[in-house]
């Protein structure tokens, strides 16, 4: 229990902050949503023209900067990459397609449930199912191969980009697109969002919080360390929502959600499957991208591209439900991720293991 303290604390703080962000203006059950916020940011830059979801979310900027600073302070900032980057881009793309089918990343999924949105149950079942399938591939020897050291500058680029975004947001907002109504128009004050992002970035980097890793580790290693953080988010957000009157139990008329159980299940199934092959959920990818992991930075770009694509081609669901295009895209996603899984199974998993080496201790 003692060794899980840090991650439980992180989870509790994220849960509480999420509830407060909603109180101060973020869309309901969306204190944090990495997929939605990346999508909104892509919209603000005009990468898609869905007018309801355009805003540079300072939470994303805060998470990246917080994780960047914490990784330097903890001597964990290390610039590396080269582990199948384009494959990771494609996996990131389909994580976003799945998330926008469900309407939320794994973090928002848990926040939706904590707000009483029972549709999230189908999402969680799908997510766990997707992770289970991913674990089968890992156990068969799936690997995107190793990373190598890269020049320091590579690792500085991602945090720098977010600083530029923040400067644009506060000093040159006329260059950006902003929603006048819809979820993109609902947001907490800029600095409140930024500070909350910073706190989450620092804590999640330090304690390696990952929503996909939690369920994966339970299935693979019967290790409950990571999932304890995931559960802590739920408990803190649930209590916070109840105290602030933000809890509404039921399936229908839930905020920024639809009631199509099958596609909620399949959407998050795709997110779980692809996230396990990537080694982490969207939040974890964002954190890793800030601490010098260039493959994760490429994954984040895949998320951005997927978000823009989803809205330009009418793949994203709405409160009215999923679209036909979105359903086709999720099915294609499963096929592509399956192929990526199959063709990356290392034939000889023993390749990195040497037997019978004599060592003096």
């Amino acid at each position: 229990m003692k060794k899980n303290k840090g991650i439980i604390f992180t989870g509790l703080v994220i849960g509480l902050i999420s509830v407060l962000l909603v109180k101060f203006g973020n869309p309901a059950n969306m204190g944090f949503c990495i997929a939605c916020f990346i999508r909104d940011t892509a919209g603000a830059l005009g990468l898609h023209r869905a007018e309801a979801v355009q805003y540079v979310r300072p939470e994303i900027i805060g998470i990246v900067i917080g994780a960047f600073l914490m990784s330097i302070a903890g001597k964990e900032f290390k610039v590396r990459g080269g582990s199948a980057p384009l494959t990771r881009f494609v996996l990131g793309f389909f994580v976003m397609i799945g998330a926008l089918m469900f309407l939320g990343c794994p973090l928002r999924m848990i926040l939706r449930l904590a707000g009483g949105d029972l549709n999230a149950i189908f999402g969680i079942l799908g997510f766990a199912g997707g992770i289970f399938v991913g674990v089968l591939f890992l156990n068969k020897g799936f690997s995107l191969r190793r990373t190598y050291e890269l020049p320091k500058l590579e690792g500085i680029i991602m945090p720098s980009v977010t600083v530029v975004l923040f400067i644009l947001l506060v000093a040159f907002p006329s260059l950006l697109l902003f929603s006048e109504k819809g979820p993109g128009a609902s947001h907490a004050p800029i600095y409140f969002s930024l500070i909350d992002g910073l706190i989450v970035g620092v804590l999640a980097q330090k304690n390696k919080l990952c929503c996909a890793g939690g369920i994966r580790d339970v299935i693979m290693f019967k290790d409950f360390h990571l999932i304890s953080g995931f559960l802590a988010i739920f408990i803190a957000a649930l209590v916070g929502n109840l105290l602030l009157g933000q809890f509404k139990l039921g399936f229908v008329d839930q905020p920024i959600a639809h009631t199509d159980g099958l596609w909620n299940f399949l959407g998050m199934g795709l997110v779980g499957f692809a996230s396990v092959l990537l080694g982490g959920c969207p939040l974890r990818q964002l954190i890793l991208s800030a601490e010098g992991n260039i493959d994760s930075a490429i994954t984040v770009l895949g998320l951005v591209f997927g978000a823009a694509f989803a809205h330009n081609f009418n793949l994203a669901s709405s409160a009215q439900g999923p679209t036909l295009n979105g359903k086709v895209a999720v099915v294609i996603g499963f096929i592509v991720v399956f192929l990526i899984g199959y063709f990356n199974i290392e034939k000889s998993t023993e390749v990195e293991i040497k037997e019978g080496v004599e060592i003096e201790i």
Partner: protein
Amino acid sequence: MLRLKFKVVDARGRSCPEPVLMTKNAIKDNSNVQVLVDSNVAKENVTRFAINSGYKVEVKEEKDSYILTLTK
């Protein structure tokens, strides 16, 4: 000084959860294992897994990597 036979697992550069999985495969037959990793998160994960599996873990830091020595 004690000389023991070890399996050596090179998990440097591998992303989560591969170092743990490689360790899991290596300790299946209860042998002593030495694991090389190059990130703090892999060090923590492998250590946690090894201790949960009843191993003693000794960590040595070397330049850019960690050498984890797992013995029963």
